[in-house]
Every structure is written in structure tokens, then in C-alpha cells.
């Protein structure tokens, strides 16, 4: 029998499938559709120190095999999360990642300090949000900006620290190395790609912010390549994502070097898609005689039994 469990950073995941930040809320809606304890983990909607209303205007725009979103980190703020959402999430019998994003360095630090005092299992630090204090640049674009924030967060964070990388980084491998050097215990990648769309009748960008984030199957080959390259250059655990729609996609990300994977936009295709992926991975392992996912993690280039 296949054993799908994965242990990283002292935490045991019953399978490698985590639902991605921003596509699964705090789990409440999906709990109507399935037993969330079946999941390896859940990453919360991106949290900021203070409540955020998010962006105005159109927030979603469908593209070929994907979508652009400009939600703008609408969330109740970290205090309300701890009070109203976390107890529910922790009751679901799965690993809970608190995804923290947005604002100034000081906001990040204050939010992490609050989460230190909770039973959240891990922090997923989203460094691809606009940073007011460095002139609108995102922390996740240039290595120096990322190093600064990861170092400062690591210095105060008492939970395992996963840093979520932006595919918009100037150089994804250097960015990964910088984050690990600065104290990231694990990396997750990728967040959405910067994109845009134009309303040709109005002669205006579709989104009030002009730029929005692209996700879904259209980004998968690029995301997979990034996971592959990053996994060869760092030794910390990797959580891979970007356009995963079925178990085959998930296995590709694992073979490219992911310890765990996340499902984001796939949740929109069907609220129970993550269960299909979990069942599919188990079936694949059984069919292929794989006992542990370690056997295929980053297996590219290693000798294969089937070659």
C-alpha cells in the first residue's frame, strides 16, 4: 500500500495536497462539500495586520485556460483571523498554514508576532505584494528586498517559515537562494504571474490596477520549470504549485522536486477537485509500486526502473 504522508519541518502531512491561499477562503465554504480532514493542509487567505477591503472594480477576468485576478488581499485582518477563523480551521484535522502578505515590513512583523502566539502550524510568507515603504516595488522581485524581509521575519518567527516566491522575481533561482540564506525553512512557488487585459470598447485596462495576477493551467509549464530549477539549487523543502488540475500535474510537480503541492485555481473547476487529486496520487502510487513519495521526488535524471 502506498503511503502518501510527507514529513517536513517537524510536521506531518497526511498527503502532499494543500489548498492554495486565496482560492479556499478559510475552508468554511468547502467544508460544506467535503471533510477537510482529507486534505494534507490548507493555506489561509492572505492575511494582513489590519482588515483590508481589497480592490474596487472588476476582480476576475477569464483568459485562455486560466484567469487574471485582482482581489487585492481582501481579508478580515490577523486579529479577526485568530479570533473567528483559526479555531474553526484548527478543528478540521489538517495542517494549517497562515499565509501572511501585504503592507510594510513593520506590518509583516506585527502580524507574525500575533500568529506566534497561536496554534497555527506554519507561516507562509507571501512576499509578492506591493510594498509601500520601498516605492511600490514588491519584496519578491529583487533579492535584496527579499533578504531584508525574510531575515527580519525569521528573527522573530517562532513557527516554521515558508517563503512564497513570486514568479515575477528578476531571477527565480537567485531569489530562492537569497531567501534560504536569509532563513526560509521552506519555499513555496509560484504565486501568480503579472499580467493584464484591455477592454477594447472602453479603451481601458479591465482592472482598476491595470496589472493583475495570472493563474491556472496556462502557467503550469513555466511554474513547473521554476520548481525544477529551484529544487536543484536549494536543499530546503519545496511546495510546488501553478495550474495543477489533476493528479498527473501533481506528480509532475513532485517529480520536478516538490515535497508538497498546492491547488489554487483548480478549486474553481470543482470544489472537490483536491480530493480527486489525492485519490489520483494514491492510485498512481499503487499502480507504479511507489511506496513513498520520496521515491519519485525530484527523480528526473535519476535512473528509472522503466527506462
Amino acid at each position: 500500500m502506498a503511503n502518501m504522508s510527507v514529513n517536513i519541518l517537524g510536521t506531518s502531512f497526511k498527503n502532499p495536497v494543500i489548498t492554495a491561499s486565496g482560492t479556499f477562503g478559510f475552508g468554511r465554504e468547502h467544508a460544506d462539500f467535503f471533510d477537510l480532514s482529507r486534505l494534507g493542509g490548507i493555506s489561509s487567505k492572505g492575511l494582513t495586520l489590519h482588515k483590508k477591503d481589497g480592490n474596487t472594480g472588476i476582480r476576475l477576468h477569464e483568459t485562455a485556460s486560466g484567469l487574471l485576478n485582482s482581489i487585492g488581499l481582501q481579508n478580515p485582518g490577523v486579529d479577526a483571523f485568530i479570533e473567528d477563523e483559526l479555531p474553526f480551521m484548527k478543528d478540521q484535522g489538517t495542517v494549517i498554514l497562515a499565509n501572511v502578505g501585504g503592507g510594510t515590513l513593520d506590518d509583516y512583523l506585527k502580524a507574525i508576532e500575533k500568529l506566534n502566539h497561536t496554534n497555527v502550524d506554519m507561516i507562509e510568507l507571501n512576499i509578492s505584494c506591493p510594498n509601500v515603504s520601498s516605492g511600490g516595488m514588491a519584496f519578491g522581485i529583487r533579492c535584496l528586498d527579499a533578504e531584508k524581509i525574510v531575515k527580519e521575519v525569521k528573527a522573530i518567527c517562532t513557527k516554521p517559515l515558508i517563503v512564497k516566491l513570486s514568479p515575477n522575481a528578476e531571477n527565480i533561482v537567485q531569489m530562492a537562494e537569497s531567501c534560504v540564506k536569509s532563513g526560509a525553512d521552506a519555499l513555496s512557488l509560484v504565486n501568480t504571474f503579472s499580467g493584464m487585459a484591455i477592454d477594447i470598447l472602453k479603451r481601458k485596462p479591465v482592472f482598476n490596477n491595470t496589472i493583475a495576477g495570472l493563474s491556472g493551467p496556462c502557467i503550469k509549464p513555466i511554474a513547473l520549470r521554476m520548481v525544477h530549477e529551484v529544487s536543484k539549487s536549494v536543499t530546503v523543502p519545496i511546495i510546488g504549485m501553478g495550474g495543477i488540475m489533476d493528479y498527473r500535474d501533481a506528480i509532475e510537480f513532485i517529480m520536478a522536486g516538490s515535497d508538497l503541492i498546492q491547488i489554487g485555481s483548480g478549486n474553481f473547476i470543482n470544489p472537490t477537485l483536491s480530493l480527486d487529486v489525492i485519490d489520483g496520487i494514491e492510485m498512481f502510487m499503487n499502480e507504479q509500486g511507489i511506496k513513498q513519495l520520496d521515491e519519485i521526488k525530484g527523480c528526473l535524471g535519476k535512473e528509472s526502473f522503466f527506462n
Partner: protein
Amino acid sequence: MREGFKSLKIKSNLEISTGIFEIKLQAKYEKDIKPGQFFMIRGWEATDPFLPRPLSIADVEDNYLTFLYEVKGQGTHLISKLQVGDTLEVLGPLGNGFTLETDKKIALISGGIGIAPMFYLLKNLDAPVDFYAGFRSAVYWMDKIESQVTNLYLATEDGSAGHKGFSIDQFNPRDYDLVLTCGPVPMMKRVLEICEGIVPVQVSMESRMACGIGACLGCTIETADGIKRVCKEGPVFKGKEVLL
């Protein structure tokens, strides 16, 4: 536990007016479906188009579920090509639906394809109802509506049927205790203006959706009570709540 997407067999998929289709699916719903609720619909394999499409429930019968839709873009075009015996993927019912009240004099006001939820709404209203239906030109579903209402006020913008102009030209808010409306935003905005301070209104709102269940925060609108999700707290809102 609720079911995720499921496949329903198509019993018929007819073009009842140019670009307007009525699709009937074989389905048995044990649970009540409320008028004004919607389903997320997909009529194609694989991931392009990527997102399912929201459609209001047009009718529920013992063994059938009906949607009324206008072909707008790729998604509705693909659905319109489906044949009897093919299947459609549906998720729902979703959203809140209209709040039904009895012992009231009620006006329903629809514009264009906004008529979609109105027939099933009528079936569930135990009250005298006047219906104000507006269309650009071609008129549909009036035969179904006519027998269920006290008065039918029909209008077309080009005058090809009924009153020439807008259906609300003939509408006086003081005649009613409650107004329910679904249609283009400019029309609903006008309805709210006319009814302000006179009669309560419920409006069915539209917004682009991804998850349809309240998880992605993509479909939100600003309301007098803060940001709300059209798919979860809506699609039906109190008139005094929405900011059109």
C-alpha cells in the same frame, strides 16, 4: 455534505428566440431550490473556457431543471451547441434567492434576459402579482408568464410588441408593497430611484464569478453594509443595500 459538480442529461436545448435558449435537464432535487438562486454551469471538457458560468434557475419541475440563457460569448455559445442526450455539468443551487412574502401586492420587473428567474419566482409567490417585462425587440416567455399574473405590462424599446419604450414607464411604486427586479444595471438603478422611500425592493445582482461558493472573493460588490459576495450573500440584495 453537498455534492460538487455533477452531470445532468439534457432533455431539450431550444432556441426560443434569436440567441435565447431554454435548456431542460433531467434532475431530481430533493432539497428545496429557492427562486433567485443560481447554478454554476459547464458544458465543455477540459480547461478552455476555464471557469463555469453562473445561470439563474428558470424553472424546477418534478424531474426537470430549466435554465434560460442568452448567448453572449464562448461559454454560452458552447452550451447552445449541446444536443439532447449530452450532459451538462452543474453545481448548485447556490446563493440566497429572493425572500418570499405573502399577503402583499407585488410587482416583478424584468429587463431582457433578467426574466430568467422570474417564472419560477412567480410560481412560488402566493400573492397577487403585476409583471413588468421589458425587451429590446424580440419577446419571449410571455405565454408562460401571462397566465400566472394579475396584470402584464409588456414593453419593447422598438415598439414591436406592447408599449414602445420601457416597461417601467407604466409602473407606479405606490401601487405595491414589494418590488422584485432582475435586469440590466441601468434599469435596476432606475427602479431603485423610483421606489426610494416608497416601497421596499429586492434586486438580483450580477458579477463575474470564479468559485461561486464564497471562497475566492472575486464577485464582491460594495454595499451600504460593506463588501459582500454576490455568490454567497447575494445574488439577491435589499434595494437599500446596493449602490448602483
